[in-house]
């Protein structure tokens, strides 16, 4: 009787996972390998694919322009993630400490921007940041500026819009972890004469680290792969690798070059997030060890 039960224990999870694995293999892994293959083609055209060459990668790394675009993309990703953390942590924390009924509507408000089309959001920002937009009207009416300022088509504009787009991911990540932290721990710290800042630094932050890193990872990955926002809000003057990849593949039909850039972004992005996760894990283990002692 035990044997069928054991085999069922193995089979059931496998069967439950099968549809997802099949979907991933068919629509993610197989196309990814196709793209990887394309990145090793020497030609610069979709229709001329044959042979094996490192030409696309060599071209990327031998031209300082591309290295600088890659670097700027990562810097922008980190800035966006840090700003999202700065704004998202207090919001996520306060939401987590609310009762579920009080939290419900606030969460709907947080996730509302995710239900809108990105193009609609971006065109909305074009109007807000334009010369005749709301921000310029405020600047003029308050006397801060004497003439309309050029707010669009700049790096700060791109970063602002990316923060607005990806903030919900940070808020939700932080909130989901903070809800697991028992408020009693904060009360206990207060009983032990820790002030609010010490409680926040020594109790809340360490326990919320998994949520912070999860949110940071999500926002970082989404930011470095963004292409619509840099193209429309940056007016092509703000270099981000995502928009270059889009240009290569969709406008120039230069799949080999676009595929190579996509893989460089994928591998370097994974490298950065893996390093961050490793740092987070080691910090958590260290903390855990300290508390165990």
């Amino acid at each position: 009787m035990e044997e069928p039960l054991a085999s069922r224990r193995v089979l059931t999870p496998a069967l439950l996972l099968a549809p997802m694995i099949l979907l991933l293999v068919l629509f993610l892994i197989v196309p990814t390998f196709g793209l990887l293959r394309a990145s090793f083609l020497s030609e610069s055209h979709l229709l001329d694919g044959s042979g094996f060459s490192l030409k696309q990668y060599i071209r990327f790394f031998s031209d300082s322009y591309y290295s600088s675009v890659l670097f700027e993309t990562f810097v922008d990703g980190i800035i966006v993630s840090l700003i999202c953390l700065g704004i998202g942590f207090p919001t996520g924390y306060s939401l987590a400490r609310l009762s579920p009924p009080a939290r419900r509507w606030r969460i709907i408000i947080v996730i509302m921007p995710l239900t809108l089309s990105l193009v609609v959001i971006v065109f909305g920002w074009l109007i807000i940041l334009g010369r005749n937009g709301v921000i310029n009207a405020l600047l003029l009416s308050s006397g801060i500026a004497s003439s309309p300022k050029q707010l669009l088509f700049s790096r700060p504009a791109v970063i602002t819009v990316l923060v607005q787009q990806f903030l919900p991911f940070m808020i939700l990540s932080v909130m989901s972890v903070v809800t697991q932290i028992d408020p009693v721990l904060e009360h206990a710290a207060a009983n032990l004469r820790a002030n609010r800042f010490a409680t926040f630094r020594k109790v809340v932050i360490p326990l919320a680290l998994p949520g912070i890193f999860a949110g940071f990872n999500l926002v970082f990955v989404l930011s470095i792969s963004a292409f619509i926002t840099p193209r429309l809000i940056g007016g092509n003057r703000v270099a981000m690798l995502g928009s270059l990849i889009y240009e290569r593949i969709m406008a120039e039909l230069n799949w080999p070059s676009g595929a190579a850039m996509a893989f460089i972004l994928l591998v370097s992005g994974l490298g950065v997030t893996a390093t961050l996760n490793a740092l987070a894990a080691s910090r958590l283990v260290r903390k855990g060890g300290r508390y165990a002692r």
Partner: protein
Amino acid sequence: MIKRRTFLKVAATATAGALAAPYVHAESKKFSGITLRVNGYGGLYDEALKKSVAAPLEERYGLKVQFIAGTTSADFVKLIANRDNPPYDLFMGDSPNMVELTKAGMIEEIRASEVPNVKRILPDFREFGHYGVPFSVASVIPVYNSKYIKPPIASYSDIARPDLVGRAVVMAPATYGSLLTLLGLADENGGSIENVEPAFKIMSAAKTNIVALAQTNVAEIQMFQNEEVYAGIFWDGRAHELRTKGLPIVTVVPPKGVYSVTTYINVVKGNKYPEAAYAYAEQLLSDEGVLGVPRALRYGVTTDVTLPEELRRDLLFNSQGRIALKKKVDWEKLIANRSAWTEELNKIIRS
């Protein structure tokens, strides 16, 4: 009392009518039940084609046409990825797309024996031999807002004029508009398709003028409407659209020549209804069909059609003299240089 002669006349007409009726009916139902799939450009463009081409075909032959709006490059990828079962019966593409389409061997040749109206196409407007039927032409030209720009802009190179600092827009690198702009700049400054270095020099000089590189036509329209920019390089039809929105946008005809892109309709190889596809091309080149796009968007025509006065006034190529300004482009060379030019332009603008 009916006369014998009258009786014979009436009887003969009635008999002929009775005999011909099934054929007339058959002709009107010739393509009934057939739906042609065409990749669309979306918006007003497709609406114009529906009105001037699809609707008359349905009325005359029972032929239905479905426009599937998308971006041409993505549609092209879809087409070559489904070579055995093409997702479109007709493929609409601009001159640069024609290089890819002919190279991929995806389209049929079209001759006057299949589409008689092909004979009406103006000289030099059919750039790819027997491939493709050109029906519309869009030109890349300098435009400016006359409310703010006082000495008029006169050429492509004026984009680098010092009084335009922070006030100009050009089309994004890798777009055909951007590549044609480079050709225009090169041509005006002693260069050519073989040597676009003079164009890059002008773009470097214009860098501080260029606020943004418009990714889409809608984005560029919005920049002019919101007065983010006062001058730029744009499509002639879109400049007209801005004027209809009440903006004092002036279209400049560069004296050294105008760079244009022609839009073609192609019959896709392996499509199930070649005869219906040829009927579409024939209607597209008819007076009614070829005037559809200009009526809606003021892009130029490619045939000997007589332009109505309201169109003649607005169209860039409205006379023999103007048509003579249309520069010939070696599209194959342009496509071959696209990546390198785009890369160089990106480096200049983002440096």
